[in-house]
Structures are given as C-alpha cells and as structure tokens.
C-alpha cells in the first residue's frame, strides 16, 4: 500500500494544483497520488494497482496524462497538476464529464476520473481524434465494466463527433 513513510525527510513542495499555487512539506518518498489523496484530500484520483498498470490515478502534469502512482510528489515542484476535481467549472460538468455521464462511459465509476483525465489530455492536443487516436490515448487505462464501447462513444461525443 502506497502510504507516507513516517521517517522520510521532508522538503517544501511548491506546485500549482488545479489552478492554485500551494506549498506543502512532503516526504521525499511520497508518491504524487498519495500527496493528492492523503495530504490534499483530493480523493477523485483513485488507486487501482499501485504500479502504473491500471491508469485509475491518471492526472495531468503540465498538460500530460501521467499515472500519479509512478511520480514522486517532490518531482512536481514548480509544475502544474490537474486532477478530475478541476474539470467542472462552477459545478457545471465539463464536456467530457457530461459525455461520460450521458453516454454511460462510467458504470462503477472507479476508472472514470483517470479515464477522463487521459481523454482530456488527448482532446487538448487533438480536438478531432479518430477511434484509433482514442484507443491509443486510453490504452493505459483499464476499465472492467464497460468493454470500452461507451467510453469511446463518450470521448467522441465530447469532441462533438457524435449526435
């Protein structure tokens, strides 16, 4: 289980989290996902495997989709981190969130935050992705419920490519 190690040395971490700069003393050994969940209590980012295989912990680091269980928090100094909590504005669903909701891209919902963040990174660099583009961008995110069919439709809908 990825948890904070009590005896690790701590350093000041300064990063831009969901648009706001903040500073925290974090242990050198602390993973970004544990920093997000245990220190900042942003629990939208999930842990499904601990070892970078499932993609449930995907967040954006300087706009790139990254499994936050494979990144040390201390390595994010000066960087911009975006989590699922940043997408909705004034509690209005982001286009990907709306599409995943309405097209049933989320069933149990546990993979959805990571899946949506990976899709967000894709749509920022490619606003009209092909099905192959979507598959390539989401191939590091495992979903056990949907068979991915409605996930692909959700991303296409968010990109305005479906009625």
């Amino acid at each position, binding site marked *: 289980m990825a948890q904070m190690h009590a005896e690790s040395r701590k350093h000041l971490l300064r990063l831009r989290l969901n648009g706001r700069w903040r500073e925290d003393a974090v242990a050198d050994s602390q993973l970004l996902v544990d920093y997000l969940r245990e220190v900042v209590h942003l629990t939208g980012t999930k842990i499904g495997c601990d070892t970078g295989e499932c993609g449930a912990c995907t967040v954006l680091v300087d706009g790139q989709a990254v499994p936050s269980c494979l990144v040390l928090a201390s390595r994010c100094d000066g960087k911009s981190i975006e989590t699922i909590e940043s997408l909705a504005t004034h509690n209005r*669903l982001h286009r990907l969130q709306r599409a995943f909701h309405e097209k049933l891209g989320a069933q149990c919902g546990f993979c959805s935050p990571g899946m949506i963040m990976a899709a967000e990174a894709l749509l920022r660099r490619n606003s009209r992705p092909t099905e192959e583009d979507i598959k390539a961008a989401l191939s590091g995110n495992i979903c056990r419920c949907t068979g991915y069919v409605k996930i692909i439709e959700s991303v296409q809908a968010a990109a305005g490519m479906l009625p």
Partner: protein
Amino acid sequence: MTAVRRDGPSLKDRGVPLIDGVEKVTGRARYTADLDHTDALVGCIFRSPVSHAEIKRLDVAKAQQLDGVFAVVTAADCPHTYGVLPVAMNEYPLACHRVRYRGEPVAAVAAIDAATAQRALELIEFEVRELPAYYSSAAARAEGATLLHDDKPGNIEREVHHIFGDVAAGFDEADLVRQHRISCAEVNHAQIEPHAVLANFDPETQRLTVQSVTQVGYYLQLMLARCLEMDVSRIRVIKPFIGGGFGARVEVLNFEIIAALLARAATGTVIMQLTREENFLTHRARPQTDVMLKLGMRRDGQITACACEVVQRGGAYAGYGIVTMLYAGALLQGIYDIPAIKFDGYRVYVNLPPCGAMRGHGSVDVRHAFECALDRMARELGLDPFAVRRANLLRVPTRTMNELVVNSCGLSECLDRVEHASNWCTRIGKLPPGKGLGMACSHYVSGAAKPIHWTGEPHAVVNLKVDFDGSITALTGAADIGQGSSTMVAIAVAETLGVPLDRIRVVAGDSAITPKDNGAYSSRITFMVGNAAIDAARNLKAILLEAAARKLDARPEDIECFGEQFRIGRSGQASLSFGEVVQAALVGSGAINVKGTFTCPPEAQGGKHRGGAVGSTMGFSYAAQVVEVTVDEPTGAISVDHVWTALDCGYAINPLAVEGQVQGSVWMGMGQALSEETQYLNGLPAHSNLLEYRVPTIAESPPIEVQIVESHDPHGPFGAKEASEGALASFPPALANAVANAIGVDFDQLPLTPDRVMQALVERRRQVRASTLKRQPS
C-alpha cells in the same frame, strides 16, 4: 402499469443515465478508500508464506510491543469459522492451527501508519511444520494425498450426481455421439477498485460500524456478529460507492472481519486497503475447470442425450463451492430441449486461494464446452450452427426435467437478430484466409429463487418515504456496485407513480436505514427488487389516490392521474397537483412510509432432488452472439474484429444500462477467452497484477453491437429479466468456433493465448508434413 420508451427504432434515444453518474464523473463519489480516515489506524495482514502447514508457533509479542502498534489479532481472538453457506463454513478469518494456501491470513496489526504496521508484520514469529501441498485437482485427488480437511476424503469437497431422463436410451437413439474434454483456466474478477474496509468500534456504546466493499451487506453483518460474538443489532454495515464486484464481494471476505477485530481490539477506527496482489490472494473467482462432455445428436441436429462430468479446482476452503458446482449441472438445462441429462461434479480442495462466485456463476465453462461441441457435431453432420440451435429450442412455458420454471424465452428471436445483423448467411464460409465467424448461445438466472438463508422473509423489500416537501425517497438494501440498480429502482418507482424521475431519491445499502436485501448476486436485483419497488409504488399510489379523492370529494376509483395532476375522471375540471395531494395525504398521518415486497412462489424454487434449489429462478435471460475474428498465423494472435450480441432481457427498463451491461459482460467473456488466466508457482500467484493478469485494454477491444430482445416475462417487473450475466457465457465458445472457422483448429483449452494457437498451428503443420511423407514412396 406504465411502460415508457417502447420499441423505438434506435436504442440511443432510449434510457437514462445513472442517477449517481454525476458523482462518479466528477470524482465526488466516495469509495471506501476515499472515506475520511484521517485519524484511523492502518490495518495490515500477516500472510502465510507456505502453502500447507501445521502452525507450530505464532508469536506476536514483539509486534505488539512496537511503538505505534495499537492491536495485533490472531486466531486466538476469533476462534469462529465463517462462510457464505451455512452448511460449509470451514474457514477462519485468521488461520487456526493450520494454513492451507500461500497468502492465507494468519495475524493482523493495526498501527499508527502503514510503515509501522509493515515493521510490526516483520516482527511476527511464525514457525510451521510443512505438509504436502497440491496445486491441481488431479494431485489433490491422487491416492494417499494428505487431506486438506479431515472430514473430506479424497480432498473432494462435494460430489454431485444427477440423472434426468433415460440417458442410455438417448445415446442409443443418436446418429452421432461425440465426447470431448475442455479445460478452462482460473480467472479473477479483477474489479478495478481494490478491496478496502473502514471499521469503527465505539467502546462507549459497544457498537461496530463497518463500511465496506460488500455486495451483500447483511451477510457481512451476520458474519461479523458470529465472529466477534456480538449481538447483530449492534453492528451497522454501510456500502459506500463500489468500484465493481462481479461476484468478488458476494461472500464475506476475511479482511472485512479482520478489520473489525482490529477495530475492536484497538477500540478505534481501522482502515484496511488491500494491494492488488492481496486482491488476487483473496480471490473467490471462477475455478480452473475440466469439463468432459458427451452429446448424442440426430442427423437433423436434435440433441438426444448429454453426459457431463465437471471437475472444479476449488481452492483451499469451501466458500461458495458446492453452489458453483450445482449451477454447472443445473444450467445444462433451461436453454435447449434435451430429453436426457447426466451430470457428475467433483469440487476439489487444493492448496490455492479459495474460488467463489464470478459473473455467470458456474455456467460459463460448461456452456463453453457445450456450445463448442454443438458446432463440432454440426460440422460433422453438415449442418449450419444456427440450425443446430434452432433444432433444440425450448418451447415455453415449460418446466425442465430438473424443475426449472421457464416462463419466457426470446432465444429464437436472439438467433434471428444476430444472424441478420452479422450477415451470417452471406458471409459464412466466404471469408478470406485467417478470418472466421463463430456463434453460440447462453442463458442465466434472474436471481436465485431460493435465497441462501431461508428465513421465510420476502425475497425483496423496498420502502418509500414521502414527506411534506413532496419528495419521494426509496430505501433499498440492494447494493449498487456500478450496474445501475439504484437507477433501476428510481425508474420503477417513477414509472409506476407516473412522476418524473428526478422526484425520486434512492438511498441504498445502509443497515441502519435501508431494509435488509439479499444483495447483488445471481442477477437478482432487477427482477426481485424491481418488483418490490413497483409494489411499494402501487401501495403509495393507492394512498395518494385516496387522499385526492377525499380532497376532491370523489371516490378513489374515479380519480385519474395525468403525470402529476390528479383529477376526477378524464374530463374533470378540478385538479390537484402532486404537492397538494401529498399534503392531503399527510393530514392526520404525517410522513408516509410504505413498503413493497416481492416473493418467489414455492413452485419456482426448484426441484426436490438434492441441490435442486440451485439454478431455480423466476426468469432466464437468453443470449445469442456472433463473433468475427482474425487469426494471425505467424504470431498466433487472435484479434476480435466485431461482436454482434442479442440479449432477451424480457423488457429493458433502462435500455442504456442494459446495453452497457451486455457490452461489459460480453467483453469480460472475451478476457476469459483470449488472455485472462491466473497462474501459480508452487502456490505463489504468478499473475497477481494487472500487467501479467491480462485484462483486455481498449486497444484490443472490439465494437460490440447489442440487440435487445423483449420477451415480456409474465412475472418480471414491466416484463423485465436480468441483463448483466447472460451474454457472458456465449462469448468464449463463439470465439472458439470462429477460430475453428478461421484456421480449422479446435481448441480444448481456454484462454486461447497466442502460444497455444502457435502450438496448435505448429502441430498441424507437423501432421500435414508427416502425412505428405507417408504418401511419398520410400
């Protein structure tokens, strides 16, 4: 009853998103690990490093003395067994005297943080006398093998022997009799949310609150009471958001009881989050299964007899064991009209993590063997695979030989739909080399008609609360694990009352608030809880009609509802709004609480023969599917190009969710067919992560077209049956049949990994060479 969204041309126009979907896509949904555990102790489990041994010494003193450790528990703290079946509770939450699989929990600690807990685990002293360990059914059954459980000779947990009809005569009547043996690998649910539990024990009130990933809250409540020797009324079980189940969480799991033991010992709160490896050790999934299947068939494709022997490698403890085996035998029936069936089942104890229930419980591997056999025999007889299925369809309503009631069956239409959608007739046999088409059928129960604890209570209870604000709260113990059951309850209530969906709020899965429910297993919720929800809504409607009648000075039977308007007759001038009617109904009574129930009648609860209750249900779902594959001969890799599935779910209460469930179950069948397989090295799980346990990624997942067939079951809620499991079991055989169509090789194993395909192709080339050589003069 009102039925909406009937037979539109496009499913995309039908159905509603999940009522808890917004929380999920925003990250606001709290799963167990997300619950506030700021001040909680961290629980960790010390697991057996050996597969089979007598415990000689277990000393936890040093761990206990470590600074920051608040509690250490062992079997001494819980000398009680637990288990899902009252007849087979042979497992301790923490091993007692003996360990029977590598990774079995032996002790556990609760400490100030994870690092301290880990250090404490390292201080536990554990000495054993190792015993012979067995990792295959054959080894455990061999003569002279050491027994895992002293009362189970031959390491056989249970044998099942059922004969229905005259089997010998059936085989005599056949024009073709064939037998084949198929071996299916063990698979795992691999639900994406790892197991987690948050347990709190309050020493002042002596109350225990457990928030856990359970699919069946009341089992957990019962087992906690048993293992902790507590009055069950002092235990509260809450189900937070759940990240998938697929059967993994149907049984009470050891870590749930262990966390509660730790919380009580530490008199505080304990969080336990299992690693992915520990999830594989907890297991309870589909066993490695050997199926020997013999079928008799007439020239026209009619099946005359079936003999089936099944050996399941069940793991070290009983768990659901016998039920899995009984399903394997019972569900040979209920799909085709077969005049004679013999079933022999052997559930074997081995030194591996215990197996349990997994989506398609018991039916999947046997259905695979059966549907592959149908295709092979059809080929020999020169019959089309569709024709063979059609030659054996059940006529409904009927009662099968093993007393399963079948009131509705849309399999014939499912066959028509996928045959047409896939252009089967024009494409079969005309595909380019390496490409193939295959098909198969399957079915599954809409809830076990006989619950595990037979108490005489209804099969489902739903409560509705209506208060001064006009809101309706549906209270259900049914566990929404992502399948959309809470949404189904909301729709059932809204449709019955004729009110908009957003007037309904659903509270689910909290033993302090919601009525007991038998839980999320055997695809029972839509049928049973759906019917209970409709019943509750009807009871509420009667109260509202009476109140409206009082207010309008009319008779209740003269009141008509138009959406949320209540009027006298169709042309009535005076009308009341929903809020006004609720206000009238509250006069003299206050907040309204009504109940709805559903009970399966005794005649639906199976035969009188031993084990005859398993497989019995109020309604079967039916599925047919066609799979198109490409086999890459140089690498042996199979890619699935397209899947056409039709599912008879009776009536689609929420077509969007039905489509999602069907796609998910078909795809899970694809994982089992192509790549998923647990493996053990001397009892050590070798695939205990999501890299080596190969769940299909989006990259290799095909388009899955879903056709919904509505056979309108006479007893289903709005005519509905289950939709989440039935389509799974037809995928693996449809795939194997497609591969046979593509490369002319029949496989007797699952999964069809590239190495197995390669091996078969190499073997075939060798045979071709050998026969060529033989023909050449020496």
